[in-house]
């Protein structure tokens, strides 16, 4: 399998502090990958760089078959190329209904005039209904997103991600603040997503990572400390020292 995203030796520093240090990373089409690492390891910053929020000081991020470099592109261009992102803190549009949140995320023309004259077709309505179903929000489709529980907001955000039909999904701490039951459901959802998308999941919860049952990358101080199956990784002495042994 050829790689879908190729991150080559990126570094970034904030006021002299190296948040990402010569980090390289690769993910293939339809691969599920977990990223773990202590607080401040640079996991979210890594996603910021891939999605265009932060510009790296060095290195390159290369996307797709055509090897497009992403580091000069805007957030919206990168999103339209097929990279979707779920934030650490759930961010949905709280003022609008679940349906509207999903409708905005649907993969359609994003140019202002096309959006102005957009008609919410039956096809699109059906897509929204199906999405709401897959994230367990069928009953809540007409509710204002702000009224949803924390877990439901997390799911809605995942649903919006799916609606974009991206090829790569970057999911930052999807299970934070979820009940055990909700977590299990989220694992299911992510695994299903990985059947036809590449998915990168950042998570602290080891139980959750174990259930995902995929290749794991350990970040520490902005670079990759270890990579492999969960079993291999947790036996790695470096990893034990910096992360698990604490």
């Amino acid at each position, binding site marked *: 399998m050829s790689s879908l995203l190729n991150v080559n030796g990126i570094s970034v520093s904030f006021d002299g502090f190296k948040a990402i240090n010569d980090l390289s990373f690769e993910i293939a089409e339809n691969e599920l990958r977990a990223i773990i690492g202590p607080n401040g390891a640079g996991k979210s910053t890594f996603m910021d760089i891939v999605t265009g929020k932060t510009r790296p000081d060095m290195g390159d991020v290369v996307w797709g078959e055509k090897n497009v470099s992403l580091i000069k592109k*805007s957030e*919206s261009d990168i999103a339209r190329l097929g990279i979707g992102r779920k*934030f650490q803190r759930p*961010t949905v*549009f709280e003022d609008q209904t679940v349906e509207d949140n999903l409708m*905005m995320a649907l993969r359609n023309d*994003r140019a202002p005039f096309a959006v102005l004259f*957009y008609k919410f077709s039956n096809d699109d309505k059906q897509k929204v209904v199906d999405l709401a179903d897959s994230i367990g929000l069928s009953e809540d489709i007409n509710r204002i997103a702000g009224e949803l529980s924390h877990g439901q907001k997390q799911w809605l955000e995942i649903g919006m991600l799916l609606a974009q039909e991206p090829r790569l999904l970057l999911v930052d701490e999807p299970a934070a603040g979820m009940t055990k039951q909700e977590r299990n459901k989220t694992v299911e959802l992510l695994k299903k997503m990985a059947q036809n998308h590449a998915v990168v999941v950042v998570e602290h919860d080891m139980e959750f990572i174990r259930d995902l049952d995929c290749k794991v990358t350990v970040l520490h101080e902005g670079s990759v400390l270890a990579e492999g199956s969960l079993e291999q990784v947790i036996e790695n002495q470096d990893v034990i020292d910096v992360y698990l042994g604490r």
Partner: protein
Amino acid sequence: MQDAVLTKFLLRHPSVLVFLGMLAVFTIAVTVLSEGFGMGIVSTSLVKTLGKTLCLALAAIAMDLVWGYCGILSLGHFAFFGLGGYMIGMWLMYARTELIVLKANAAAALPLTPQELSDAIGVQIFGVVGGSEFPAIWAFSDSFILQLLLVVLVPGILALVFGWLAFRSRVTGVYLSILTQAMTLALALYLFQNDSGLRGNNGLSGLQNLPGLEETSQADVSLWFFWGSAFALGFCYVIAKLIVESKLGNVIRAIRDDESRVRFLGYNVEGYKLFVFVITAIMAAIAGAIYYPQAGIINPAELAPIASIYLAVWVAIGGRGRLYGAVIGAIFVSLLSSFFTGGQIPNISLGFYTIQWVDWWLVLLGLSFVIATLYAPKGLGGLVDKFKKA
């Protein structure tokens, strides 16, 4: 087909029908009671005040669209309003002066050459600022159609350039507000100069006199403009409603609430802000172009930064993000303002101090703005919600 879409839209949003219905009833009532129609219960000057108020309401709708829906607190939209007034004022002044000059020379043996005509008009218009040459910006002032086009183009292009520069650099929040204030201040200061080509602090005057219609009484003219104001308000209200109820309305509200999230959904946020900024600048300009012929005069003081702040105050008091709230706010506050500052109520003498309403009105307005912001974020429009629920 087009009709069907509109009918469906109106059925889905009965508030539009209510709004248009109320506007129509109001317009007819004022017309029937006006001097121009014969009843004379509503004076011509009141007709003008009401017509101007409708224009202010239209500017407030634009403000609500850009601020209430898209979250851009522009404190410069009155500059676009004023520019609209200037653009139409140029034609009004030129065309009327031309007629006067031609009439004065009608008895002369030889007709005026184009150059002589232009010079004579120039002296009439620019004498007050010690000039007689037509500045380049008056190049189209003899054409009603072109000058009408400029009503839309000049503010539209200014908004496009300003917005493009500001949004592209991702200036947001209070910094953007300050930038828009700077824009309107700079424009006003420029216009104050005698060599700005727009008669400095004299501004453009005599705008209530329509060229070629000297015989028509102001009672009639005031009614025409009143109707024009009502039509423009109704029309732009429907346009604004169509925008906010479309998917673009969803996107701009999303931008207001969390613009970076919208970027990660793949929307080019800057393009959307620019679209809304320009559209609303044009709406404000149209409102200004109908307002100033009713006011009769426009001068650079109209573009003072405070005017744009008032616009925001009206929208806040009327209630943001609901369009009709902006209309209520603009009508309520501006009528109240002319009531307090028009000398209708006597000043209150406390012996040691006299309450001058002209001054104290501003204090009252400031207080109600603070109260609305703190305790009634939904403004007067919030009352409508309570009424609806009951």
